[in-house]
């Protein structure tokens, strides 16, 4: 009897754990439960695989369902970013579906199928293959970390499936021919150039204001690429690099790094940090009482929805390069509803750069489907590369048009803007021409920091 009881308990325990970590559910709890609902619906219509093959048999798929793959790191320390991007993608797809779906395909509805990259290249490649071969998705969106995205890009090129790169900014993604992927927002190269331009402009305003710099970066392809770019740009500006620090994603203490900053006291700190390390860095700097003239961030950890709730106003004065900020919507009154509806859908959470990237990537795929009139991957890809989305398109929340270089897939129009944390909100202030009325760039940034104010 005891053995039977034990067997039942163990079986239940295993079932719960497998249900929780199973690859098919992929994402967070929320997406997992949605997937379960979808799986149940698929079973009701004679099994998911059968339904998928039926769909594939009809090239036009008029009035049917079009499957799109969504690949992000739903588990691990980068999962918060995945959630933000997913919220943007789901908002876009719900919007398209509620407006009558893909009209050129008889109102076909979009269905999202999720996969978890686990921040790992092999796992991401395997999930991409599963989405393409098993689930029959017509296109993929993702995947956040550049090295992970590179491995998915290779799979998409192998299977000739279009990939709308979302939240990955590695230059390698757009170097050389990439016939099956596009990037919509800015890449690292644009970020480092924007930082360099900012430093140059500040030095023009206040000669000699920035003479020394520190570089802090995560040890991955993204951090490495930004580090290399900064070194090159700073050398050209004749700025001395006094601290160059690399740290792992799972770093638990950054006191030594801040000690070095206090000791060398660089005028500007350029950083490429994910959420965990950005929070640690901000809190340690505030605790020690260190503040540079300009803390230049790279649209990562500091744009996470949970960053401000975690650090409060300790980031006030920091600058962040961003492809997007909520203030962009303030300069687009006809699109303000996008921000308002997003907040309503997500219990008061604000749009982040990641949510915006997810929204735009999903919309690009939907526009491609509309133009192609088919869920055939090759047709979608051809249509996607020919897209010309004007700045005033109803859904384009970027301050630039969207079109793609035919060889690399890069959106050459993407220009990063720069925001500054002012009273716990990112205010877009650079180039100064885009600043909303009533906001202005504060330099040195530490004048806004609570440490400076309390002194």
């Amino acid at each position, binding site marked *: 009897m005891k053995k039977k009881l034990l067997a039942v308990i163990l079986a239940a325990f295993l079932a719960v754990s497998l249900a929780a970590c199973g690859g098919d559910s992929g994402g967070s709890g929320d997406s997992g439960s949605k997937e379960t609902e979808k799986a149940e619906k698929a079973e009701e219509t004679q099994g998911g695989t059968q339904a998928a093959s039926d769909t594939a048999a009809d090239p036009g798929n008029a009035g049917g369902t079009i499957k799109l793959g969504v690949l992000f790191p739903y588990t691990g320390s980068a999962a918060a970013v995945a959630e933000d991007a997913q919220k943007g993608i789901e908002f876009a797809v719900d919007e398209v579906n509620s407006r009558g779906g893909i009209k050129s395909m008889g109102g076909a509805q979009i269905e999202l199928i999720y996969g978890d990259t686990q921040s790992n290249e092999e796992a991401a490649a395997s999930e991409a293959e599963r989405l393409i071969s098993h689930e029959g998705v017509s296109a993929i969106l993702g995947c956040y970390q550049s090295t992970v995205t590179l491995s998915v890009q290779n799979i998409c090129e192998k299977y000739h499936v279009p990939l709308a790169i979302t939240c990955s900014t590695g230059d390698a993604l757009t170097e050389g021919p990439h016939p099956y992927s596009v990037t919509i927002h800015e890449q690292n190269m644009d970020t480092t150039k924007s930082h360099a331009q900012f430093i140059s402009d500040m030095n023009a305003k206040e000669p000699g204001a920035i003479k020394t710099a520190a570089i802090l970066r995560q040890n991955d392809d993204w951090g490495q690429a930004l580090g290399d770019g900064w070194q090159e740009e700073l050398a050209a500006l004749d700025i001395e690099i006094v601290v160059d620090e690399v740290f792992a994603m799972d770093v638990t*203490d950054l006191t030594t790094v801040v*000690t070095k900053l206090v000791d060398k006291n660089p005028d500007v700190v350029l950083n490429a940090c994910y959420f965990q390390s950005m929070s640690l860095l901000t809190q340690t700097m505030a605790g020690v009482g260190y503040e540079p003239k300009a803390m230049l961030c790279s649209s990562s950890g500091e744009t996470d929805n949970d960053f401000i709730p975690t650090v409060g106003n300790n980031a006030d004065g920091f600058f962040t390069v961003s492809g997007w900020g909520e203030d962009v919507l303030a300069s687009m009154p006809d699109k303000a509803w996008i921000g308002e509806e997003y907040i309503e859908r997500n219990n008061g959470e604000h749009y982040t750069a990641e949510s915006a990237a997810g929204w735009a990537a999903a919309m690009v795929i939907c526009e491609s489907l509309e133009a192609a009139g088919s869920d055939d991957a090759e047709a979608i890809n051809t249509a996607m590369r020919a897209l010309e989305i004007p700045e005033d398109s109803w859904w384009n929340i970027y301050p630039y048009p969207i079109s793609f270089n035919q060889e690399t897939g890069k959106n050459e129009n993407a220009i990063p803007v720069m925001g500054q944390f002012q009273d716990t909100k990112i205010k877009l202030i650079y180039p100064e021409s885009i600043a909303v009325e009533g906001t202005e760039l504060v330099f040195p940034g530490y004048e806004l920091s609570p440490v400076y104010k309390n002194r």
Partner: protein
Amino acid sequence: MYYETLILGLVMGCIYTATALGVNIIYGIMKIVNWASGSLLMISMFIVYGATTLLHMNPYLTLLIAIPVMFTFGYFFQHIVIRPLYLRERADSNPVGLLLVTAGLGIALENIMLMIFQSTPRSISMPISLTYVDIGFGRKLSLVKIIGAGIALVTVALLWFYMNRTYSGKALRATSQDREAAQLMGINVLKSYNVAFGLGCALCAIAGVIFATFYTITPAVGTTIGSKAFIILVLGGKGSIGGCLLAGLIIGLVEAFGGLFFDSYMSQIFCFAIFVLVLYFKPSGLFGKSRV
């Protein structure tokens, strides 16, 4: 700068020791590697978060909740899940089930928490969160980390006292040295194992409380923090409390000075290099006894 780094290394070393004590006790007594240690630590961080946000408790007082909850969980998990496996696999020369059951527990706990709480990072705000105290020579160090190190040192002292000066602790040590002989002397070995696993989980709870005061709480945090526990286990010698403390201090110092002379990423590499070298040259650990 060297002075500050030295103090930081010692403080972080004490905190890392707290993460390894639970693994060390369980392995020392039961010869089971508790792969779920990181996840148990994560669970106790969520207990701290819940108690501070819902009950508005002082984070340090949540030890009064986290320790009994985690001890009870560990006691009954050992009794209900591990014990039958142990009895079945005792004669087996390669007890894979025992090895995998804690790994399964770790994965299950992490994913169940992910389902319930999602990956949203949470943190605890205390009035002293950003308080940095003067440690001499004009240098400052985080007060919550110093308090964390103090709690870790008190835990080490209490654990040493329990294991060496109490009947129950001596029974656990006797069980770890020779379980058949202990059984002949009237010690209930299986009950000792329940206590050992419960104690290991309670020690994870203490580490969880310490980390919750200064680190972000997510379902994946156990993997991030827990990895160092195994380096300390191997370095200090399995089952040695003093060795565990010294190993923790070594890791803390290597990490701090590695970060100062090179960068913090290199310091992680040094920690794992030590792990590999000790495994290769002195598998019983720097302070463990070699098997005859």
